């Protein structure tokens, strides 16, 4: 094997480990910061036949946000509701330890609820270069004039399924399947290195 270019930001990092926290790529102020966290409570709500609008309405009222049955993220103080498909909503909460139970009580027979607290790793991306970075993997229009705060997409980035939404002007949140955390982080590091990327790896990791 040829020795890797000294420019390879992943040099020396095993492919089956999440790259460690630190600065990658170009020096100076990081063009993109990536912070991974475990969002404490996540549940998937799947509206049963004919209840999509009703479920959206109930979720909106319960969490004090505007929820529509479309690819949007309704961002509240403690909870966020993201449309991931027709009649499908991911609910994220910082404060509801039994989120699934709360939702079952709220929605009754109108929806099927599954716990997804452990299914995802949350990537918070910030910086002006985020759209350029994501454009290296995603096939959706991320132009900040088109993809506005509150817009969401469930799509594929670098062959990895991702649900993402724009939280505010320069903040984006991505949910990635936990088993793919290392591969997805590698994609971010390799693709973000030209902008300078700071990674803060805050997941519990695997014992």
């Amino acid at each position, binding site marked *: *094997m*040829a*020795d*890797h*270019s000294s*420019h*390879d*930001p992943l040099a020396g990092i095993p*492919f*089956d*480990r999440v790259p460690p926290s630190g600065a990658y*790529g*170009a020096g100076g102020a990081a063009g993109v910061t990536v912070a991974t966290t*475990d969002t404490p409570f996540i549940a*998937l709500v*799947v*509206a*049963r*036949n004919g209840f999509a609008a009703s479920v959206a309405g109930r979720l909106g009222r319960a969490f004090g946000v505007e929820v529509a049955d479309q690819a949007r993220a309704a961002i509240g103080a403690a909870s966020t509701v993201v449309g991931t498909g027709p009649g499908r909503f991911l609910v994220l909460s910082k404060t509801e330890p039994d989120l699934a139970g709360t939702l079952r009580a709220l929605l009754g027979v109108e*929806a*099927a609820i*599954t*716990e*997804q*607290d*452990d*299914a*995802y790793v949350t990537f918070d991306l910030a910086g002006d270069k985020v759209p*350029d970075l994501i*454009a*290296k*993997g*995603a*096939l*959706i*229009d991320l*132009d900040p004039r*088109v993809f506005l705060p509150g817009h969401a997409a469930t799509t594929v980035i*670098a*062959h*990895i399924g991702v649900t993402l939404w724009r939280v505010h002007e320069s903040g984006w949140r991505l949910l990635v*399947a*936990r*088993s*793919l*955390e*290392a*591969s*997805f982080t*590698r*994609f971010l590091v*390799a*693709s973000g*290195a*030209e902008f300078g990327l700071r990674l803060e790896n805050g997941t*519990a*990791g*695997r*014992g």
Partner: protein
Amino acid sequence: MSTSNRNRLTAGGLIDRARPLGFSFDGTRYRGYEGDTLASALLANGVRLVGRSFKYHRPRGIFSAGAEEPNALVELRSGARREPNSRATVTELYDGLEAASQNRWPSLAVDALSLNRFLQPFLGAGFYYKTFMWPAAFWEKLYEPIIRRAAGLGRAAEEADPDHYEKATAFCDVLVIGAGPAGLMAALAAGRAGARVILADEDFLPGGGLNAEAGDVGRKPAPAFAAEMVAELMSLPTVRVMTRTSVFGVYDSGTYGALERVSDHLPEPAPFQPRQRLWRIIARRAVLAAGATERPIVFGGNDRPGVMLAGAVGTYVQRHAVLPGQKIALFANNDGAWREMLAAHAAGAPVETIIDVRTEVAADLTQAARAEGIRVLTGAQVIATAGKTLTGLTVATASGTERIAADTLAVSGGWSPSVHLTCHHGGKPRWEEAIAAFVPGTCPPGLSVAGAAKGVFGLGACLKDGAAIGAEAAQALGFTVPALDVPDVADAPFALTPFWHVEGSKGAAFVDLQNDVTAKDVGIAHKEGFRSVELLKRYTTLGMATDQGRTSNVTGLAIMASLTGASIPETGTTIFRPPYTPVSMGALAGHHRGKDFRPVRLTPTHEWARAQGAVFIETGAWLRAQYFPRNGEKDWLETVSREVTSVRAGVGLIDVSTFGKIDLQGRDVGAFLDRVYINGFAALAVGKARYGVMLREDGMVMDDGTTARLAPEHYVMTTTTANAAKVYQHLEFCLQVLWPELDVALSSVSEQWAQIALAGPRARDVLARVADGDVSNAALPFMGAIEGTVMGGVKARLFRLSFSGELGYEIAVPARFGAALAQALMQAGEEFGITPYGIEALGVMRIEKGHVSGNELSGQTTAGDLGFGRMASTKKDYIGRTLAARPGLTDPDRPAFVGFRPVDPSRRLRAGAHFLPLGAAPTMANDQGYMTSVAYSPHLGHWIGLGLITRGPERLGERVRAYDPVRGEEIEVEICAPGFIDPEGVRLRG
């Protein structure tokens, strides 16, 4: 060699004389300037011989000044970055550039294989179809390697490419392809209207023809005008100017492929920059402003270094301030070439002779030429050339032939619009008699063409057309386009007399310089009946390889047309397909190479397994523990046998989180499962799991797994690791399309739950120490499924299932607790000698037990083949039932699932071996099936196998041969029942 830039003009051009750049060609060092291409810098230094031709190893020089270059292909860089077939004409010069000529041996000046020239009579069109026919066996071992050595282009690097490549997607309202006069105006019209515009250009300096234009535009020198336009475009917030970017393909729904050469103009990429970036540009509208390509005239000796397209001569003089030669002649059939030469002459290029095939040429041109002391020969043709690099021409005129001294011959047969991208959806170019060229036919949806690319010649006309087409594209999208002030440029009339081939010329007359296809080869193809342009291309290779016949296509078919007597439009042109220009494999791969070829999924216990010394293996997307070697074990087999023995004697654990896990909720889940599984599920009790088999619609087995009923309206299904996504997709399809009326909500919970299988006679003892509740045989019987907690309050699902044939459980906990569960089980099982085991041991145990797995679920087996025939319900309908009853699928002679043991227990079995009756010849007719899975059974002390053999279950005890021609082995085996261990299932239920 000189480093003097002796052919460089002292002033003018778009080069920066304050920024000299050192480079080398074939080891000799030279100097060029910023703004040079490798070709312009070589010419400036008097280097005219740059390569040897593909087939005949003839000396070749620089023929063009752009992407159409057929000759000047070089190897760039060295070592791992060596890059063959780089066109010197589009290679931007950088300090330290290393280039080497290719396809020559031992050196460029003396090439032993140029002897091929003397074999030319035998190497003509289709020679390899004729010459190397017999004996056929020699093709692979002898002929092909020889031909490949003798003919060919450059050498690829032998080491892995050290650079990074990437892919990206961009969206825009209007994509403008080409930043020449038409493209710049189109981009400006759309950009000023506020449309999101991407302007892509191959060159490092946008401006196209403006950069080689001698005249003024809008009272400024043309290049300055271009620079101003570019500056304004770059200042517009919605416009993105992408230089060094070739749009190479038009795909569906307004998707365009483009290659950005981010770092090709640097010795190596700047830190953290990719070498190249592959763009997928999704454009609502596109404007093709790719310009036109000049085409040559075919005559004897037209490949000699020094013969060059007239426009290229102009470009080198005007843009690069380089004189391609000291004695320049022109051979043309059109006025444009005259004006090009007059402008070059005015800039200091010594043009001495103009030879035109036409007898009548506009008086203003002939007068202007004569006023400059240029000799004018009309009604004349070049019939031969002389010199290793050009020293002289033989010209035939009405009054006879004469020799003329010249070191450079500019040629022009007219211009062909660059219609390539317009053909990518199957559109056929249309012949336009007035300009004797193909112009775009039906374009891909959303693509319009502007300027020379559609046959609008003349700078003034191109500017106007570009502005109009750009405005139209933006307007079509609803933008209001402000009026655009287009500078007036007076265009001289376009005058051309079609002329393709000097028939009476001497020596080889090349049509396609890159593939060494001569006019004579076109004649051979004609004579042998390969007359359609598509056949002509394949038979002679005319128009193939890196330049895709940019300069040869029209000439080739024009010659064919004259031979057949058909017109050019009747003859037609070959279709242009993507890519328009070569795209490197690295760019197509992007980030996805090496270990990043595809994403890797890690199990929740990955780090824990690593700490246990696991060896990992990629199984589909997952990286799983294959086995856990211990000190002193001599090979994997010893390790795996130890793991199996430990499980069967005590207890072991394995991470099975990779199974697909699908949550199903709703009133109709039972009915739904009845329709997707062959066996019944509606009657499954709460708290129980059941094994099920699913078929595809065509009756073949799709997947197997267990589904548990956790609550009256709540089930959880497991699928095999390999088919997790496929089964989910299948179920979604069933619910969305086939039975939307069913009340079933599907959710994937594969990532939420870590799942660990615990197996062995002591499994319950271990589980009891970890589970918070009762796991006795009464509380959790075989095929039981309960929800509870483990490790003092961690939510869990407990299933009593077994793949190994032992007392077994699968314990699911939220993924973040997976590793903790593994640790807790290890601790709880310490006194029983608990062993972590990998998928090899899992495989051995399932083969011992006779369970089917991926090898048997091959997509070619039916439920009946696999022994599930009696499981299939006859009381209900289910997917695949009808087609599973096809005669071919119910044929009693179909190979069916059984076990195999070697008659000589010391012999090793081989998966993939085919079964033949004893004494039967190894022919397809005697083939009775094949071995699907084998393992060494530590329990039995010999190899065992599973497989599919004709009427297998009826033949227990019979002996057959397992024939393995791949490994050259043949073993006698005995057919047996597939369960090698505990066939009654006592252990499971214990």
